[in-house]
């Protein structure tokens, strides 16, 4: 066997991590040794902000786990900072005394956060924002609550501020310049951003200069140049980064702002390369990962053989990772005599768009609020195409090009290959096309499995389908014509019809008669079939627990750590001191870590151990409470407002009506979850107009609305009709619910069902066809006879006992 070349990497950040991935894809010419000053594996530094805000954990952001290093035979020295490079002997030596020889060396020491040497900057409680330790330090400090001051209103500072706010601290941002993120945003967008943050309760002080950090042992406050003093138990300094060039400089390599390299990333020593934020290439240094990833690819090319890859400057867009804040900026936006601006503002929606043009080409853009066209502008910026033809409509975005309205497929066809389609997983159009072509993929499910595109939040599903339609042409079948899942070619519609027509009354019967291609179905079709059978054969069909998703099987919601949440029903959002006491007692007795008011007007007990479910339910049952079915494809909540009893505008007893509706509907299973609301007047305080079914009380009666959505998709309700009495409301809502239960496809919310079968048709049946309405209502009441049994009480009484206790405990038995 030939001896492998030795590659040593100093630093284990995102840039060298990516470089090694490319290198290992190309072959195994090197034996790799990494020294990392941080005592851990390679993780996604970008995602520290979601970790800080509590939206992710460290485990979620690991890029290379221990297995990866093992698999590639990489030696990783954790917590070993390299202090010396001997270029003569071609070795590096770490602080801990480890020496490693190299044939090729890559310096990837990243950046150091810049700390302003103010009086007090060494006090305990002053942190930078760079690595996991800083993040944990902030989270630790946030546990005690109190005030935090963030010095620096740039990307990092604002992410830190938003995260600390989400962790419950009172946060003040101190920024030297007149507007926030002034290097990426113009003052107008900076202003909108400031207003948004202030709206979240973050105090923002611009043009504020910090004079000193106060405190004796630890931080107590910050004093500004104008004499103001702000109390603080935590100070985060996020004022910039400096390329970490110390090691390179001490080794005699050429160093400017960063470690100077040529366009192949080679330093002044031909055996030493550099990658990442520490590099100065073409006179520039970089602080966002996209260019660093480009560097990584170039070096890997040169390390693995003759290559003509060169690093080229490209503008990288900036986005802020603060949930709910949408901003996008790329390129240049300073004003100048040879530049032209096109600006669009929408004060109502709080959006701002500005495109900067020079010689008929886009050189930059700043978007706030509505960022959908950012990628498109950036495409044109990169390509340098003339925008002359579309100057008048440019600012309205891509949808308005080529004759207004716009064909979505044409818009997708226009996207370049590296246009991002799935934001969650960073999947580009080109990657999807390639996966479809290479893997012979034909269904959305396949594309999800192979690329992860649209597999997270799903909001890009339409785009992904568009890319599939373009790539596959006629071979692309729209999903609703697709079979329910990989087990059958029958669509949901067919299956529902055939179950009734052929009187199929069990899952095996359906699978047999409809020629399922798998023996037992899968996790997609089994729950669907189980619902169809429950809904079609009330009182006859025996619910198949093994075909229910865990939450519906154990009547609690599984959480990410395998514990459960418990939500008792609170009819119409009304509770009593006794109920509240019982909830408090249960929380104490079972040491339930979190008690939270939900978005559905009731209380969630989170973090209950599975073995505690039965006794928790028993105590709640004893206090008169039943399961709130917070897990069910079925009735969830009926939200109400205070209504006539208290409110000076209330026209009817909205609370009472909500309670009656919840008593009518609880326990019912439905194709998807079902949420209602009753508002006492058109001010609509219980948000009836975005519910599956909503009631708005008026002087003369009740308006029934339906088909609203406020989750992944947002749309207002459509009126069903107006009735005069509460009894009628119950009847019409019961009938509507039954019609939906009868026709809906599994996981199809009311609005999707109505989109499919038509709002006019539904209205016609429920409002105008007296007999049909009565019949649906009758069917509903019949099926409720079997559905309104509290599942908690059943289980406390012994049903499904095997679910709630382990089969055996080996260590205990050994001890006996």
């Amino acid at each position, binding site marked *: 066997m030939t001896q492998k070349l030795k590659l040593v990497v100093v630093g284990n950040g995102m840039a060298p991590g990516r470089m090694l991935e490319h290198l290992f894809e190309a072959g195994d010419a090197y034996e790799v040794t990494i020294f990392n000053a941080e005592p851990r594996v390679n993780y996604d530094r970008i995602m520290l902000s979601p970790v800080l805000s509590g939206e992710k954990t460290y485990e979620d952001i690991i890029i290379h786990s221990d297995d990866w290093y093992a698999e590639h035979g990489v030696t990783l020295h954790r917590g070993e900072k390299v202090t010396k490079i001997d270029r003569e002997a071609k070795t590096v030596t770490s602080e801990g005394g480890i020496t490693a020889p190299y044939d090729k060396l890559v310096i990837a020491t990243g950046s150091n956060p810049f700390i302003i040497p103010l009086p007090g900057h060494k006090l305990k409680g002053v942190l930078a924002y760079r690595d996991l330790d800083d993040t944990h330090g902030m989270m630790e400090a946030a546990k005690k609550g109190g005030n935090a001051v963030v010095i620096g209103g740039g990307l990092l500072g604002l992410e830190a501020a938003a995260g600390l706010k989400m962790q419950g601290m009172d946060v003040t941002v101190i920024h030297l310049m007149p507007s926030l993120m002034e290097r990426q945003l113009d003052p107008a967008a900076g202003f909108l951003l400031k207003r948004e943050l202030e709206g979240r309760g973050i105090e923002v002080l611009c043009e504020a200069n910090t004079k000193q950090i106060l405190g004796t042992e630890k931080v107590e406050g910050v004093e500004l140049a104008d004499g103001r003093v702000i109390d603080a138990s935590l100070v985060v300094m996020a004022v910039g980064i400096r390329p970490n060039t110390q090691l390179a400089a001490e080794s005699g390599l050429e160093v400017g702002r960063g470690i100077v390299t040529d366009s192949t990333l080679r330093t002044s020593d031909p055996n030493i390369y550099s990658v990442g934020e520490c590099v100065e290439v073409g006179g520039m240094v970089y602080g966002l990962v996209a260019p660093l990833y480009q560097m990584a690819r170039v070096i890997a090319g040169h390390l693995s053989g003759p290559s003509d890859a060169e690093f080229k400057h490209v503008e990288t867009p900036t986005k802020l990772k603060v949930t709910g804040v949408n901003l996008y900026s790329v390129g240049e936006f300073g004003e100048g005599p040879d530049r032209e601006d096109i600006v669009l503002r929408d004060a109502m929606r709080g959006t701002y768009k500005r495109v900067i043009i020079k010689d008929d080409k886009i050189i930059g853009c700043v978007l706030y609020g509505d960022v959908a066209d950012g990628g498109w502008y950036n495409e044109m910026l990169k390509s340098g195409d003339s925008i002359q033809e579309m100057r008048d409509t440019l600012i309205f975005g891509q949808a308005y090009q080529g004759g207004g309205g716009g064909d979505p497929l044409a818009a997708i066809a226009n996207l370049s290959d590296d246009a991002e389609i799935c934001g969650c997983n960073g999947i580009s159009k080109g990657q999807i096309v390639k996966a479809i072509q290479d893997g012979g993929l034909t269904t959305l499910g396949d594309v999800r499995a192979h690329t992860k595109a649209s597999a997270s939040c799903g909001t890009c599903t339409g785009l992904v389908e568009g890319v599939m339609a373009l790539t596959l042409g006629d071979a692309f079948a729209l999903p609703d014509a697709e079979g329910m899942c990989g087990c059958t070619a029958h669509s949901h519609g067919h299956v529902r019809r055939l179950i009734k027509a052929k009187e199929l009354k069990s899952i095996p019967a359906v699978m047999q008669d409809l020629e399922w291609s798998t023996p037992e179905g899968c996790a997609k079709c089994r729950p669907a079939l189980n619902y169809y059978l429950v809904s079609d054969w009330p009182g006859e069909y025996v619910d198949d627990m093994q075909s229910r*998703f865990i939450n519906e099987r*154990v009547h609690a919601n599984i959480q*990410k750590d395998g514990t459960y949440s418990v939500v008792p029903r609170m009819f119409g959002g009304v509770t009593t001191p006794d109920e509240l006491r019982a909830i408090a007692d249960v929380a104490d007795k079972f040491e339930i870590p979190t008690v939270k008011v939900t978005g559905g007007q009731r209380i969630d007990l989170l973090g209950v151990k599975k073995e505690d479910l039965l006794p928790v339910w028993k105590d709640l049952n004893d206090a008169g409470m039943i399961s709130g079915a917070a897990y069910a494809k079925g009735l969830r909540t009926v939200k109400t407002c205070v209504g006539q009893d208290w409110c000076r505008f209330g026209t009817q007893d909205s609370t009472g009506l909500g309670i009656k509706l919840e008593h009518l509907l609880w326990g019912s299973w439905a194709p998807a979850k079902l949420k209602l609301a009753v508002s006492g007047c058109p001010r609509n305080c219980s948000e009836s107009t975005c519910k599956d079914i909503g009631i708005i009380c008026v002087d003369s009666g009740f308006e029934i609305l339906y088909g609203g959505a406020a989750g992944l998709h947002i749309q207002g309700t459509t009126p069903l009709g107006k009735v005069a009495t509460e009894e009628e409301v119950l009847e019409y809502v019961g009938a509507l619910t039954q019609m939906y239960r009868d026709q809906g496809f599994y996981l199809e919310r009311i609005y999707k069902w109505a989109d499919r079968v038509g709002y006019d048709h539904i209205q016609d049946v429920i409002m105008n066809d007296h007999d049909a309405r009565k019949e649906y209502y009758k069917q509903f009441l019949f099926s409720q006879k079997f559905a309104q049994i509290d599942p908690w009480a059943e289980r406390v009484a012994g049903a499904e006992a*095997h679910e709630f206790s382990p*089969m055996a405990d*080996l260590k205990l038995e050994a001890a006996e």
Partner: protein
Amino acid sequence: MNVQSQNWVAIGQVTDIPRQGSRCVKNGDMTIAVFRTTDDRVFALEDKCPHKNGPLSQGIVHDGCVTCPLHNWVISLETGTAQGADEGQTASFPIKVEDGTVLLGL
């Protein structure tokens, strides 16, 4: 696997486990999920999904596999490997049934 040192422990009856279902066995800090298929075969896997440690015992059992309750990876009951495009493997344990008693090999 070292067959000589195999230690078979009785953990209960096959009928204790629902068909197309699962029960847990605690072994110190580790939880082992024991599955039973429609045709009464039994399998044992560590109760940890290779993706993000989801409790496999809580998933839906179908066609010799279990679908993890957290993010729907499909894991083979026999080998513990993730199916389809996902990659990963959960530890599996030898298991057998004698006269209706389930024996777990540790």
